[in-house]
């Protein structure tokens, strides 16, 4: 329970230094934010797009399996489009990012903790949250939405390939049906989810890194813990947000 308290305190401070302090003229170092955006975001593009492409393909095949029976094969476009933009895109990108970039952040901060680097910062009067966490959290919050959009496009392309090559849906019809099926709400609810996931992945990764005790063993444990906690909290948050969007919006 006290761990949850520590986590909330750290998250609050991280959010302050990553976002709010910027409005008070104490923006995190721009070069560091960009370096982290490359590290956390750009580096994750190959794996995330690959996963999304295949999931889009699978989604199309699985829905065709049902739809073709009732002669509604054309609706594959609608199903793939809506489910990717509303759900699969944000969720999958966040989970892959948690496993790849979140774990990397935990391992990096954990190693710094073990080798007294974080204490060295404190002793120099440099706030480790401002110096280390803020750029990483901000990078995550900027890059995860970008990655998600990319992921959604590639996922829909996967569905499109199956639709046009196997179901012989004309390309223009597939694209038109996809555009027709999607409304703006699908997109922005997905983006709200993404931003919440980015916050969760970023803060959990940094918290677990700072909480490392002991040596290399501790870093390994913390990294595992960070990935597990991130994925579970992403799915729980996803469920809550989907419920809110369904009943309220």
């Amino acid at each position: 329970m006290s761990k949850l308290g520590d986590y909330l305190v750290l998250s609050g401070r991280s959010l302050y230094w990553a976002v709010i302090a910027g409005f008070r003229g104490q923006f995190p170092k721009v070069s560091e934010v960009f370096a982290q955006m490359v590290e956390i975001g750009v580096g994750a593009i190959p794996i995330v797009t690959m996963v999304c492409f295949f999931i889009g393909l699978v989604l199309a095949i699985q829905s065709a399996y049902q739809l073709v029976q009732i002669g509604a094969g054309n609706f594959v476009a609608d199903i793939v489009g809506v489910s990717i933009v509303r759900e699969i895109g944000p969720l999958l990108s966040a989970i892959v990012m948690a496993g790849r970039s979140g774990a990397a952040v935990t391992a990096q901060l954990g190693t710094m903790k073990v080798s007294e680097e974080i204490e060295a910062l404190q002793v120099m009067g440099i706030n480790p949250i401002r110096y280390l966490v803020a750029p990483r959290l901000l990078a995550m919050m900027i890059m995860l939405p970008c990655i998600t959009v990319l992921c959604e496009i590639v996922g829909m392309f996967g569905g499109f390939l199956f639709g046009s090559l196997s179901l012989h849906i004309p390309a223009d019809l597939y694209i038109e049906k996809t555009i027709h099926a999607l409304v703006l709400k699908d997109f922005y609810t997905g983006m709200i989810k993404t931003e919440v996931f980015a916050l969760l992945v970023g803060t959990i990764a940094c918290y677990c890194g700072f909480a490392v005790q002991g040596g290399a063993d501790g870093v390994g444990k913390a990294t595992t813990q960070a990935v597990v906690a991130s994925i579970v909290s992403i799915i729980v948050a996803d469920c809550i947000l989907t419920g809110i969007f369904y009943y309220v919006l």
Partner: protein
Amino acid sequence: MSSKSQPDDMIVVRDLTKSFSGRSVLDGISVTVKKGDVLVIMGGSGCGKSTLLRQIIGLSKPDSGEVWIRGQEITRMEERKFSEMRKKFGMLFQSGALFNSMTVGENVSLPILEHTKLAEEVVNIMVKIKLELVGLTGFEHLMPSEISGGMKKRVGLARAIAMDPELLFCDEPSAGLDPVMTAVIDTLMVDLSRKLGMTLVVVTHDMASAFRIATKMVMLFQGKLVASGTPEYIKALDNPIVKQFINGEADGPIPLRLSSDDYLKNLLG
């Protein structure tokens, strides 16, 4: 400010206690360091030297007792205010604690870049001067993984003095250095304190180096202060624990084992 504190007292530690999971590590420690002093904290491994240093610099909180630095109590100080104060501190960690993702030069320049708005050219010159002081001219572009343990420690010292702190803490500065480099570092420390008026707190168990630099020495034994005074006083002191330690003898009152459990009982269960 407390009534007992004098204006030239840099650090006043009062009745400090700290225990880890029931084992008492510091037990009622009181020390005063005046401005310009070089305090050497001696004691065997595991006697609480580093723990005492960590309490003084506020990296961990004591169970009870007070630490006053420049007339301000730091154990209950707000983090932001203390952070401001720490800009005037420097600390050399036992392992050097360099940032592994930065070059040697970037490590030394970090505190300067973070706390001042000096131009890059000026910072580069300052970095060169500090590295020169520890005998590492021309090493700016190497990564910490490319230099030896002793060099890392010297870079750590260069970083600790980068901002010309008023107070410098050193945890085992001579461990891992060759005798010549130890002497160089000792001379540097003496210069820093005598010429620049820097106050130093040094934890060490290298006796030769301790007597070279100290103006005041304290000895810790099983979490308690057993002796405190000038190097001459400590040398002349007729205390078996101190004598055994400074002469490095195997026989004496300092036990081999940390626990006082009966050896036989321990062996036989």
